[in-house]
C-alpha cells in the first residue's frame, strides 16, 4: 500500500491537475471504499453465520418449548441416553474410516493417473471425477437403488459367484459399511484431484536423484513424494474430515439413520430430533458436538495460513 502513497511523488508536476485531484480523492476515500465493498460480506457472515452459531449456543440451553432456561439440562439429558453415545461412536467411525479410505484411494489413483502418458491423463481424470460432480442427493438415490432389498443389482451380480443376498441397508453392520462406501465413492475423487495437482508440482529432479541413489519405488514415495505433499495431504484430510463429520445427504437418503439408529451421525440425528421430533433445543445441542472437531481444524488451518504468510 506504501507503493500507492509514494507513486504521486514520481508523477511529473506537469500532469493535469484534475488527474492528481482524482487520485488524491481516491486515496483519501480508499479505506471508506474498501469498507463499503466488504460490507455486504461482513453483513452476510455476521447475520447468517456468526449470529446463528451463537444463537444455537443459546438455543441449546432452553427447554423443548423454548420458554424456560435449563442451563446444561439438554446436555445432561443427552449424556444419559444410549442413542447419543451410539451416535458419537458412529460419527467417529464413519468420519475416520471414510476419510482414511478416501485419502488412500485418492493417493493411489492419483499415482496411477500420474503414471500414464500425459496425453491420456485428461480423459481418465475426467471419468474419475464424475462422482464428485453429481449432486450427492442424486447419486445416493442411485446407490439406494443398487442396494435395494429385493432388486439389488449388486446382489444379482454376486449371486453368480455364489455369494448370498447381502442386506446392504437392512443389517446394522452392512448399513454402516454401505454409507461409508458411498461416502468414499463420493469423496475419493476430490483427494485424487488434489493429490494429482500436487504430484505434478514435485520436481522431476528429485526422483532422478533418488533413482541414482538406488531408491526403489517405495523409498521414492516415502522419502520424496510424501514429504513434498505433506502440506496438501494435511489440509485435504482436514477439510474432508470436517465435511465428512458434518455429512447429512448420504446417510439421510440411504438409511435415514436406520436400522434402529445404527447409522445415525450427528447431522442426521440432529435433524431427526430437531426438525422431525420438534425439539429444536435438543437438536441444537446435538449439532453443537460437531464444534470441537471444527475448532481443532480451525487451529491447524490458521497455523498453516500464518506459516505461509511468513514464507511469502
Amino acid at each position, binding site marked *: 500500500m506504501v507503493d500507492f502513497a509514494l507513486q504521486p511523488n514520481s508523477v511529473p508536476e506537469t500532469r493535469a491537475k484534475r488527474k492528481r485531484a482524482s487520485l488524491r480523492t481516491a486515496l483519501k476515500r480508499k479505506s471508506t471504499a474498501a469498507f463499503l465493498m466488504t460490507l455486504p460480506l461482513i453483513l452476510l457472515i455476521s447475520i447468517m453465520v456468526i449470529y446463528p452459531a451463537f444463537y*444455537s449456543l443459546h438455543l441449546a440451553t432452553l427447554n423443548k418449548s423454548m420458554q424456560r432456561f435449563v442451563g446444561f439440562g439438554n446436555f445432561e439429558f443427552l449424556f444419559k441416553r444410549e442413542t447419543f453415545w451410539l451416535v458419537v461412536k458412529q460419527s467417529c467411525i464413519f468420519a475416520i474410516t471414510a476419510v482414511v479410505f478416501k485419502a488412500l484411494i485418492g493417493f493411489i489413483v492419483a499415482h496411477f493417473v500420474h503414471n500414464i502418458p500425459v496425453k491420456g491423463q485428461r480423459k481418465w481424470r475426467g471419468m474419475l471425477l*464424475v462422482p464428485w460432480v*453429481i449432486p450427492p442427493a*442424486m*447419486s445416493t438415490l*442411485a446407490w439406494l437403488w443398487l442396494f*435395494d432389498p429385493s432388486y439389488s443389482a449388486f446382489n444379482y451380480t454376486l449371486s453368480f459367484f455364489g455369494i448370498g443376498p447381502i442386506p446392504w441397508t437392512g443389517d446394522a453392520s452392512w448399513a454402516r459399511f454401505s454409507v461409508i462406501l458411498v461416502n468414499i465413492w463420493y469423496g475419493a475423487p476430490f483427494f485424487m484431484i488434489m493429490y494429482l495437482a500436487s504430484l505434478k508440482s514435485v520436481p522431476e529432479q528429485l526422483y532422478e536423484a533418488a533413482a541414482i541413489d538406488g531408491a526403489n519405488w517405495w523409498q521414492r514415495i516415502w522419502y520424496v513424494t510424501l514429504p513434498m505433499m505433506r502440506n496438501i495431504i494435511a489440509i485435504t484430510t482436514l477439510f474432508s474430515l470436517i465435511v465428512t463429520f458434518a455429512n447429512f445427504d448420504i446417510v439421510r437418503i440411504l438409511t435415514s439413520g436406520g436400522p434402529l439408529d445404527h447409522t445415525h451421525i450427528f447431522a442426521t440425528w440432529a435433524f431427526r430430533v430437531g426438525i422431525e421430533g420438534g425439539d429444536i433445543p435438543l437438536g441444537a445441542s446435538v449439532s453443537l458436538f460437531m464444534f470441537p472437531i*471444527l475448532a481443532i481444524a480451525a487451529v491447524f488451518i490458521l497455523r498453516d495460513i500464518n506459516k505461509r504468510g511468513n514464507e511469502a
Partner: protein
Amino acid sequence: MTSTIVIDKAAPTRAVKYGSMSRDRTWALRWSYFFLTLFAVFSLVPPIYMLITSLKSSAEISAATNPWWVFHPTLSNYVELLSSNQFLTFFRNSAFVSIFVVTITMLISIPAAFALSRMRFWGSATLATGVFLTYLIPDSLLFLPLFKMFAVFGDWTGIQLINRWYVLLFVYPTLTVPFCTWIMIGYFASIPKELDEAAIIDGASWFQTLTRIFIPVAMPGLIAATIFAFTVSWAQFLYPLVFTTSTDQLVLPVGIITSLIKGDVFNWGQIMTGALLGAAPPLIIYAFLMDYYIAGLTAGATKG
C-alpha cells in the same frame, strides 16, 4: 580411482539396466491402466445404472430380469417427468435459486475480494482469514438456529420466509460466498500491482480498476467461482429439506425424494430419470468446462 570409473561405465551393464528399466516401465503402465479401469468402473457404475434404469418401463423393472441390461428401451419415464407440472416446478425453482444465488454471490464476493486483496484497511487480514474459516462451518451446524431465526423473524415482522423458495436465496450465499471470495482473493492477488497502479495513474477510479482490469484479467478465476457457486446451490439438500415443505416450493433434490417416493412405493424408473435429469446440469457444465471446474476445486487449497 580411474579403474572404478572404467568399471562403472562398462557398456554391457549399462545396456542391460536400461532395457530392464523400460520393461519395468511397460509393466507399470499396464498395471496403471488395469487399476484405472477398475476405479473408473467403480466411479461410473451408479450414473450408468441410473441411465439403464431410466430407460426401463416399470413392468421390466418388476420382472427382475438382468438389471444391467435394457431389453425394451423406452423413453416413457422421460416423457412422463418432463410433461409433469410438478417436476417442471422443481426444475424451475432449482434454476431460479441457482441463478439468483450465483448472481448474489458474485455481487458480494468480487468487490469484497478486490478490497481484501488490494486495499488493505484495518482488520482486512483478519477478515480474509475469517472468511476462510466461515467456509468450514457446515450447514448441518446452522440449520436449526437458522430455522428458528426465520420463524422468529416471521412472528416479528409478519413476513413469512419458511416454506418459500426464496428463503434459500438468503441461506445459500453462506455456503458459496466464503469460498468464492477466498479463491477470488487468490486470483486478484496474483495480478501484478503495476497493472492497477498504471490504471490509477491514468485516472481510473477504484471501480473502474475493478471492472476494466481485475475482472477481465481474473476471468478464469471468475468462471471457476461461478461454476462452484452454481454446483453448490444446485446440489444443496439439507437447507431446502428443512426450510421448504409444500410441493410448489421445493427444489429438485428434495422434490424428487419427497414426491416421487410415495410411502413405500418406489417408482424406480421415474426416480432414476429424475435423478439423472437433476444431475445433468452440473454434468454438462463439467463436461464443457472441466479445466475451470478443476481449477476452482484445487485453488481453494493450493492458493491459501
